[in-house]
């Protein structure tokens, strides 16, 4: 039966668009998370019609389907948990239209995030969501996960930038929702679809907003001797209603690893730094930068430095965006969390993470989007040490519980996927989850599209699942 499925896929797509050998499939059994799952085969459609035909075929064989972009996801969203067919969108990677007059672009899902911004750079435009994996991750993946990034503090996340989608539904039907217009009458189906982690439909075309580049940008680096001073500064910047375009925090431990790798000029002897960017009109940027420096100094920043050139600015950002990669130099593996908390609770939360690190005898690095309260604690470990890994999982669970206790949420931008789906009852009641189940079933009645993701599968409530021993190192977020 299964060999017949593969023969039919080969007949449909040709020999260069279907992978089914064990060694080929191994490349698609993991993503940027610590999860693992083997597909039966991997296919590379070239068009929406291909996708619809694959879906209809999968239905005949009652086989699960999982969509996948570049596999940089951090919650196992693109992993074939129950086997089946992985549909990789890398060949649907064309920018179909750039509509400068209306500030829109129409793209296929396999377009790499940064490639879109590069394609419109000459028009002084950009695509705002900027996850740290933007050199590799696809816009289709951004739509599935509702991805963020440092600059979403000012510009919003993916859902704020999508106006239209073409979908292939789990029954193979092709439907368009929205378009280029800022709104479309009827229910906001796009708002439901973005961030549904590939469990409702496959996205085959995306219409996004493009933003105009600001005339002025200032990037500040504030250096601190204590974590408390750093987090209090973030709270105070929010309280004083200064709205930077980005406000990122790196702790000393992470910073040292980054500096050894990137040589961006981060001081290696400090407790933490804030990387803050303000954008907009020249006049506004001047005033905001001055105000931010003042806040940082009031909170005992030992130095507030301004990037003097684009080169210096890019280097600082490279340090931030490649930080996860830098961790690979000092630890065989890490487990990255994505909890989000009210911004006023930042100081106590970082103290709590420090306590958890001591309690479980684990090294935890902190590098995250401080301005919107989105934490990324990185718990370092060695996957060969099973006992240590159990502690990692327990520590991760404790951090997430703390986030929920202070009024936060399980994930700010990485998604629930198969990593946190059993934790959903920490936030949602059975009634909440039953409604989400029903909405999923309204689109995906047989549950064949990306099974085992987002919603709990009915295991012990609130238990974090011990994943397989991971096979490969995670890539950057």
């Amino acid at each position, binding site marked *: 039966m299964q060999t017949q499925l593969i023969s039919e896929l080969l007949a449909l797509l040709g020999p260069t668009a279907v992978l089914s050998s064990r060694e080929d499939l191994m490349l698609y059994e993991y993503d940027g998370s610590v999860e693992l799952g083997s597909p039966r085969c991997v296919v590379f459609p070239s068009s929406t019609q291909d996708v619809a035909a694959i879906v209809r075929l999968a239905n005949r064989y009652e086989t699960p389907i999982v969509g996948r972009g570049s596999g940089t996801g951090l919650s196992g969203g693109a992993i074939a948990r129950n086997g089946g067919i992985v549909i990789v969108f890398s060949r649907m990677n064309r920018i179909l239209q750039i*509509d400068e*007059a*209306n*500030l829109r672009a129409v793209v296929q899902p396999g377009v790499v995030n940064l490639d879109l911004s590069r394609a419109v750079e000459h028009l002084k435009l950009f695509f705002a969501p900027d996850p740290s994996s933007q050199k590799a991750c696809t816009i289709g993946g951004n739509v599935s*996960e*509702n991805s*963020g990034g440092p600059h979403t503090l000012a510009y919003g996340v993916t*859902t*704020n930038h999508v106006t239209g989608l073409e979908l292939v539904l789990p029954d193979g039907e092709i*439907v*368009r929702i929205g378009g280029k*217009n*800022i*709104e*479309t*009458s*009827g*229910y*906001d*189906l796009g*708002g*439901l679809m973005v*961030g549904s982690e590939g469990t409702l439909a496959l996205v085959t075309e995306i219409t996004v907003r493009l933003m*105009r580049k600001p005339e002025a940008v200032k990037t500040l680096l504030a250096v601190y001797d204590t974590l408390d001073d750093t987090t209090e500064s973030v709270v105070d910047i*929010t*309280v004083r*209603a200064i*709205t930077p375009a980005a406000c990122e925090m790196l702790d000393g431990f992470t910073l040292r690893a980054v500096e050894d790798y990137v040589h961006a000029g981060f001081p290696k002897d400090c407790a933490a730094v804030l990387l803050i960017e303000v954008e907009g*009109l*020249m*006049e*506004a940027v*001047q005033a905001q930068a001055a105000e931010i420096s003042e806040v940082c100094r009031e909170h005992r920043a030992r130095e507030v430095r301004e990037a003097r050139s684009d080169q210096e600015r890019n280097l600082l950002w490279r340090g931030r965006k490649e930080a996860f990669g830098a961790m690979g130099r000092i630890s065989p593996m890490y487990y990255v969390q994505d909890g*989000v908390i*009210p*911004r*006023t609770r930042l100081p106590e939360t970082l103290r709590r993470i420090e306590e958890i690190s001591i309690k479980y005898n684990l090294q935890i690095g902190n590098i995250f*989007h401080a301005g*919107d*309260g*989105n934490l990324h604690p990185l718990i370092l470990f060695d996957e060969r040490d099973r006992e240590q890994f159990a502690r990692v999982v327990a520590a991760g669970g404790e951090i997430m519980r703390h986030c929920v206790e202070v009024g936060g*949420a399980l994930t*700010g931008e990485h998604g*629930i996927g198969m990593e*946190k789906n059993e934790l*959903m009852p920490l*936030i*949602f*009641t059975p*009634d*909440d989850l*039953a*409604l*989400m189940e*029903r*909405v*999923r079933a*309204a*689109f995906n009645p047989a549950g064949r599209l990306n099974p085992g993701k*987002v919603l709990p599968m009915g295991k012990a409530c609130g238990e974090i699942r011990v994943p397989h021993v991971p096979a490969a190192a995670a890539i950057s977020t």
Partner: protein
Amino acid sequence: MSRPSHASLTRIEEIAGAENVLTDSAGIAARAVCGVRPAIVVRPADGSQIAEVLRFAASEKLAVIPTGGCTKLGIGSPPSRYDIALDVSRLNSVLAYDPKDLTLGVEPGMRIADLLSRLAEQKQFLPLAVPFSERATIGGVVAANSSSPLRHAYGAVRDFCLGMEFVTGEGAQAKSGGRVVKNVTGYDLHKLLIGSLGTLAVITRVNFRTFPLPQAQGTFVASFPTPEGAFEFCRSVAHSALTPQIVEVADPGAGQLIFSGEASARIMPEHWSVVISAAGQHAVVDRYSRELGRLAEAAKAAEFHPIDEVAQSSILARIREFPRLALEAVPDAAIFRISALPASMPSLMAKLGAVAKQNYVEVATLTRASGIVYAAFVPTGERPVSVVCLTTMIPEVFDVCAQPELQASAMLEWCPSEIKTSADVVWGPSRPDFELMRRVKNSFDPQNILAPGRFAGGI
């Protein structure tokens, strides 16, 4: 209207208390939706009473429509059934406000005007400059997705709503999202409720992010003899480094409604006006003044001038209240809300003008440069001829919007009830995605008791 039995009435009185169940004709008439009246009005105290009412209504197949300030009950197609008006105005508190975190949780019955004054005490606001501002409640503003000129800078409700609590058509209390500013935990079900006109669930709490009030604000008006000139000016502003708070284009008809007193004296009656507001530090507002003047001159504006503070608040309030003012001026007006692309605006204006002329009506348009047009079609003759003119004109507006070179999305927000003979009159011809909307409706409200027939595709 079917009349709930005596037993039903008793049961609802048990749930909410007899003093919170109204059957008087004034109370009933005030909550009519497109001329359809409920049999009773119930005013529950909280989410659990709402859940009980809805569970009972689902079991008895009684149709329920949530109401608040009753300012937008005319929006949507006429309900096929309507037994109970579920008045949420007793749920009117701020449940959580953390000014330091710039987040807020509020009940649906709170008036937007009261909420904004509460936020102003902390020098904060919500970018909801919406019509019927004095009486409109949060629940209604969200459920009707009321359009605000501030969308230009801050986005719409979907962009700054962080989560909601609500009661489904089965009487289940549920929620989605949360109260943190960045969150991808679970499906964003609350986005579906925005603009759903009460057809999916009854909202019991809305969480928002709030925004700091700007230090200074400046408003400028440029006027142009042609729409092309006005939209060319908008284009050049959009291509500049400026990021205004508000950019609105009023045609001559809309200009008459939004400019009054001294401001109107400076506007040529046959001109198209562009109103731009900028906010920020004083230096920033000064910069706008200089640069907008230069851009207006380049676009051959007949006139460009800043507006003083008194006139500013009056003009911005009138822009905010445009649909209400148009309805007050001509109760039989048919007001479309059209979403269109900036580059297609001049062509859209010309085509709307042509449709109006062919049908012996006049049109006044107020266009948000972000892509929302209010087009108010005003019959010139007396009834019943005026109603006939509107009836033949309405499908033509949908046809124009659907033209491939425009690809605009239209919805008829306001018109005389008797014209609304089917859902298509209000929502336009059926679209393929209506089937998906039907499935969504069925997951929230399987018994079809929430505002049946009021939404797109007859949902």
